[in-house]
């Protein structure tokens, strides 16, 4: 009971932290915030071991990387292209994450690549026989790409330990899900690959966590991949400046009532796992932590030109061995 409370508190804490991070990052230009989708991120990546790999959806990626041990200040420095970022400013840190935390991001702006590459990481963990798993997430719009089809089919054929989680958030930029997907659900697509397809309430962090952990157990047992279809809603615009005026008011209202942060909070209160004062305390500390991290990152220096390379275009012999 206590331990379950502790899990719930951890989940809540991460959702609250994610919410504040997304909220504040929205103020930076060109960011793709994930307000409203924090439960999918937290539920997907909570409770994994360090040897496991994750390849998170670009939306909510900072929270995911932070859950793996990356510092928020350095992650934000990556978004800003500062010298203190994990790549020293070489790669856009909003969508590309530090691999040293077994966290794969987008090394280009092309959706779909992380899905097939995550599938390959799953192949390596299987070949090494170390029971490691890979959890990767992506948007429902991305599930219309060939990479989705080929990756999941290959994972099914080779029984790879990969869990595919879809942020089914209603939109791909301005394109509504029902315009781009005529099937009853994204979960349905699993039937074409002979793997389990599970639909889950993406705004219930506990439900997402449980569904993902069941799939993870299945993967560790060598039973192959699972497709999880997490129904959620993009409260944010597609990017900072997007007013998302295309979201019908009633639709938006209805989803705001299902806010994932409010729900986990209510759950904790009703169980008496936390009281109002403790919650207020936690949220105050989260605001402070995020504000401080962003402020620090903003004051961090730009990279010097020695970061340019280009003498290190290739990984030369030996280096590879030491590289993570």
């Amino acid at each position, binding site marked *: 009971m206590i331990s379950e409370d502790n899990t719930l508190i951890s989940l809540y804490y991460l959702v609250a932290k994610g919410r504040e991070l997304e909220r504040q990052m929205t103020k930076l230009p*060109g960011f793709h915030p994930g307000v409203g989708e924090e439960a999918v991120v937290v539920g997907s990546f909570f409770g994994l071991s360090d040897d496991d790999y994750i390849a998170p959806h670009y939306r909510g990626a900072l929270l995911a990387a932070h859950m793996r041990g990356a510092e928020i200040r350095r992650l934000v420095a990556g978004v800003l*292209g*500062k*010298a203190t970022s994990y*790549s020293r*400013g*070489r*790669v*856009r*840190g909003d*969508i590309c994450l530090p691999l040293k935390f077994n966290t794969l991001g987008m090394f*280009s*702006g*092309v*959706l779909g690549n992380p899905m097939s590459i995550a599938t390959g990481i799953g192949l390596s963990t299987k070949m090494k026989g170390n029971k490691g798993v890979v959890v990767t997430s992506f948007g429902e*719009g*991305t599930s*219309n*790409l*060939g990479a989705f089809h080929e990756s999941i089919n290959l994972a099914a054929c080779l029984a790879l330990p990969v869990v595919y989680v879809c942020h089914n958030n209603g939109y*791909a*930029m*301005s*394109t509504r899900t029902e*315009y*781009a*997907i005529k099937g009853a659900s994204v979960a349905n697509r699993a039937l074409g690959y002979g793997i389990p397809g599970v639909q889950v309430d993406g705004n219930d962090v506990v439900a997402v966590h449980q569904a993902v952990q069941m799939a993870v157990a299945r993967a560790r047992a060598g039973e192959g991949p699972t497709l999880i279809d997490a129904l959620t809603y993009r409260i944010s615009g597609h990017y900072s400046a997007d007013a998302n005026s*295309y979201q019908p008011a009633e639709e938006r209202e209805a989803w705001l009532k299902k806010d994932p942060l409010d729900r986990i909070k209510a759950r904790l209160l009703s169980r008496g796992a936390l009281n109002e004062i403790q919650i207020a305390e936690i949220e105050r500390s989260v605001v402070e932590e995020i504000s401080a991290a962003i402020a620090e990152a903003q004051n961090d220096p*730009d*990279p010097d*030109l020695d*970061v*340019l*390379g*280009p003498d290190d*275009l290739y990984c030369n012999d030996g280096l590879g061995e030491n590289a993570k």
Partner: protein
Amino acid sequence: MSNLTFQEAVVAGIAEEMDRDLRVFHLGQDIGPVYNGAMHSAKGLGERFGPARIIETPISEGAMMGAGIGAAIGGMRPIVQIMFAEFLGLTVTPLACDAAAMWYKSDGQTCVPLVVRVLFGAGPHRGHSEDYQAWVASTPGIKVVMPSCPRDAKGLMKAAIRDNNPVVFFEHMGIYHGSRQEVPDEDHVIPLGKADIKRQGTDVTLVATALMVQQALKAAEQLQQQGISVEVIDPRTIVPMDVDTVLSAVARTRRLVVISETWKTGDPLSDLAATVAEELGGDAPLRIARAGLQNTPRPFAMPLTRAAMPGVQTIVETVRRVMEPK
């Protein structure tokens, strides 16, 4: 005449052709009246022409390209937007392996009047700057257009739409919402495959495209002060390349400078430089120098992005190099 940005000029060209020819339509992601296309690349088209001719698609670039090719075979004249050139790799299999070969291999049974629009280049959008132009330029049968100013952008877009072959049309994000230019309203079509001499000069012939043309013109100003007269040629169409214009220019100056925002290996301008060396090289002196994108992936931080590609200073130095005796 209207005073237009690059983006406005492209959209105006498309709208005029859609009025003129009912077979012309536009297909892409989020190009409708709600979003108006990435970077407003389809501003107003959705509202004006409606969903029957401004067709939005799921995220599936390969099928979008196939859809454009097939629609062209079926008698339409599609304009497919592949949001960013960075995504061209998802489309080259139907485009380069099949569509590019159809006219020749079918021995004239079908042509493929298709325009493919892509955004590229270092600009406000911090990312998606790769062009991968070699992927489409290296395969015979695809025409490749890369305008440097609003006036050319409109005239070349109209020509691309009227062309009976697959044409990939590159739109540089660094000049997209930049300085305006007087653009003719009346039917203004610039033939594909004709270079434009953006500046006359007698000492050095400089060839560049898109943003690099604007940088080259600034550099040419500076060099003028230093007594070096630079001729700036903008091929405008990378494939087919207007080799003759460049050859006759270099035949006079005996000095060629190539400035590129892409990587040298596979750069169509490298082929141009090689052709100049073949045709004009011999006993008479000939100097050639090139500057391009640093031979690494494009770094992200602004100071790094800028330093990795040719700027006015690099261009000035490259020109000076070919002025020194060797």
